[in-house]
């Protein structure tokens, strides 16, 4: 097995550092470094939703906002969210709704914000991983966590957790995947590339194992802050 530019093996993740409760006034928050990505996620609410005709009488709505700070990328990015930001926000919010017991808070909105302060590939999964922890930190009733990770192909290899350099390879394929844990179901799956069916299936399966690594780190961070006996998902 060849090693990668940064010395990792195919199935190594970049170093991940998690800090919970960093933002004092938020209901829940998470600071996360993932390689050279830096993310802050906060949770506010649930609060009553205005205007009322947009609310859901059966459950809470998660209003997820993925945003990149203007200084997070090479060329300054306009602070106005673009199409990509809105699309990522939509599907990531859905992923969170799949684990939050939204039915307990009908007619409300839960504001989840994930801000990329520094970007180096894999920002959407770093943001979602952090946001899931911020929801747990906020004490929202949850069926589980969302563990998100990127898997893909670069220079002929199927690998975990691509860097920006690897994403720029001519044959690069990038798949963002989020798994509900411990249920192990797919809550988010987005991909662009050109890859045959069998390799693509392999990548999806790799996504499950990679997400478990993320999940272990998430659990560890939660247990450090909330060292209760028993299952964190209760």
């Amino acid at each position, binding site marked *: 097995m060849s090693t990668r530019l940064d010395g990792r093996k195919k199935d190594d993740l970049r170093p991940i550092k998690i800090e919970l409760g960093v933002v004092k006034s938020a209901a829940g928050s998470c600071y996360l470094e993932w390689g050279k990505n830096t993310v802050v996620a906060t949770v506010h609410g649930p609060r009553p939703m205005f205007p009322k005709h*947009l609310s859901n009488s059966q459950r809470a709505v998660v209003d997820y906002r993925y945003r990149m700070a203007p200084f997070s990328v090479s060329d300054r990015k306009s602070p106005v969210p673009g*199409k*990509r930001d*809105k*699309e990522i926000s*939509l*599907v990531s919010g*859905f*992923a969170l*709704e*799949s684990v939050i017991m939204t039915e307990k808070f009908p007619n409300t909105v839960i504001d989840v914000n994930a801000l990329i302060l520094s970007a180096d590939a894999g920002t959407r999964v770093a943001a979602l991983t952090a946001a899931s922890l911020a929801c747990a930190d906020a004490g929202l009733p949850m069926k589980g966590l969302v563990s998100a990770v990127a898997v893909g192909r670069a220079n002929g290899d199927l690998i975990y957790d691509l860097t920006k350099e690897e994403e720029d390879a001519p044959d690069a394929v990038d*798949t963002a995947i989020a798994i*509900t844990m411990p*249920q*192990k*179901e*797919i*809550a*988010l*799956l*987005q*991909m*662009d*590339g*050109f*890859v*045959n*069916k069998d390799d*693509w*299936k392999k990548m*999806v*399966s790799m996504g*499950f194992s990679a997400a478990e690594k993320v999940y272990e780190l998430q659990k560890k961070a939660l247990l450090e802050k909330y060292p209760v006996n028993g299952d964190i998902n209760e």
Partner: protein
Amino acid sequence: MSDILNLINAGSIKEKIKNGKREDNRGFEDFRDLEIKTSVLSSADGSAWVKLGNTEVVAGIKFAVGTPYPDSPDEGSMSLNLELTGISSPDFSTGPPQIDSLEYGRVADRAIRSAEAIDFKKLSIVAGEKVFTIFIDCIAINADGNLIDATEIAALAALKNAKIPKLDENNNIISKEYTDQKLELLNIPLSFTFEKIEGKIIVDPTEAEEFASDARFSLGLVKDTVVSCQKSKNGVFTEEEIFKMIDLSVNKYTEIVKKIEALE
């Protein structure tokens, strides 16, 4: 159909699906009738009108001359835009910014890009200075479900139908005059969208079925090659379900691509 009626309807659709039936009696893996007409509009450089059951999408192509991006000075570009306006549904006349329109359009756009369907180098006019931009504008005329797949088909059919405009000595487009060349498509990506209702997976959903479902998955394919995918809505899929959907899509690809290949 109004949201309220859809909500009432959703219960009966779920009940049917549980019993192995769909509201229009299709099998879970059956597409609705697909009809594609091209060259339908005299003003566009290429056009297609797609009917997928009651869902209708019109796509029109316009070439424009622009400047290339600094990082690809000898390549043209494309832009796909999907409009969901009041013409297709009263739901689109009001309400918040059209996130559906944005998502569907992005999914359709990404498949064409990843598939490298268009040879952007052939759209260069003067390297570093002038290139063609291809605008693919898709408009839903009737929104009865599965707009992603219908949009993808309409976009590809219109691209296949497109003629390349003549240029004058200043490299500006001469209105309504065309070269003999047609726009060549290197690959024909298709989209396959599934909904999960009561644990069952169905293809080509109607609007009412979409309302009854809580998980959606769209795959972009070129034959047996995956070029894009998107999971949406707040439900989840198992690994097996995902694998089943890709196998099913690969099987369907040949059937549908034939209809596009047969077009002028």
